[in-house]
């Protein structure tokens, strides 16, 4: 699981470079994300626009990263592709995350 991160002021923007977060890569995703978010920041945005598919293990991994952020930061997700969006919607986990259609203004060229 390749992740690229960039700091933009008080925001860490992380771009997932692989095309899926699945059972074969969920643990590695979780570990890499935890390393990146160990650095303090006000916001963490995960750009998922490269991720075409996410299974229940991948969803569990994204939830666990959100928990690792602690009570003061919420994981923000951006660029959900249709099948990924469907998994979040069906499981109602779309209500738990801040979801942006595309990277928020000012972060477009990050990553």
């Amino acid at each position, binding site marked *: 699981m390749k992740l690229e991160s960039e700091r933009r002021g008080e925001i860490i923007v992380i771009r997932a470079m692989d095309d*899926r977060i*699945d*059972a*074969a890569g969920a643990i590695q995703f979780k570990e890499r994300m935890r390393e990146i978010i160990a650095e303090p920041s006000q916001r963490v945005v995960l750009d998922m626009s490269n991720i075409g*598919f996410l*299974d*229940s*293990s991948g*969803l*569990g*991994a994204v*939830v*666990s990263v*959100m*928990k690792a952020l602690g009570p003061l930061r919420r994981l923000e997700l951006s660029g959900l592709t*249709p*099948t990924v969006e*469907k*998994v979040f919607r*069906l*499981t*109602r*986990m779309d*209500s*738990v995350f801040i979801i942006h259609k595309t990277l928020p203004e000012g972060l477009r060229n990050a990553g």
Partner: protein
Amino acid sequence: MLAERKATPEPAPEAGATWSMTLEGNPDAVRDGLRDLFSCELLSGLTEDSRGSVEIVVAEVLNNVVEHAYAQYTGKIDLRITRHPAFLAVKVADAGLPMPGGELPGSKLADVSDLPEGGFGWFLIRTLTQDLSYRRDGERNLLSLSIGVDNIP
């Protein structure tokens, strides 16, 4: 890893076209198997939404076999998908441990505010499928289900 693969050569397969493969019961083989399924002709002509449903269901069913049936030892998984005009019939067989209690797990979703990290798999399968059935045949688990699909008009 791909012991067997059959697919019709036509871009829009006729009803009854079948794709089958035997894969190893591990997460990497499941990932490769899904890539193979989605690059073959069996799913051509389905809407993007339907293809998404098929990918979710097949991934969850195979992941369950790897994580639970083959929790203590591993083995092979047989996957067979038949195309019908409005649905796909999916059959999965493995030689792993039986389902606990001999039945399929329920599909109750935990309260999202508790931030559950699991329990999504069977919920997704039950939400996106019909005619779900499971039986133990000797030393094998046999699962069958159908997925309603839409064709690109």
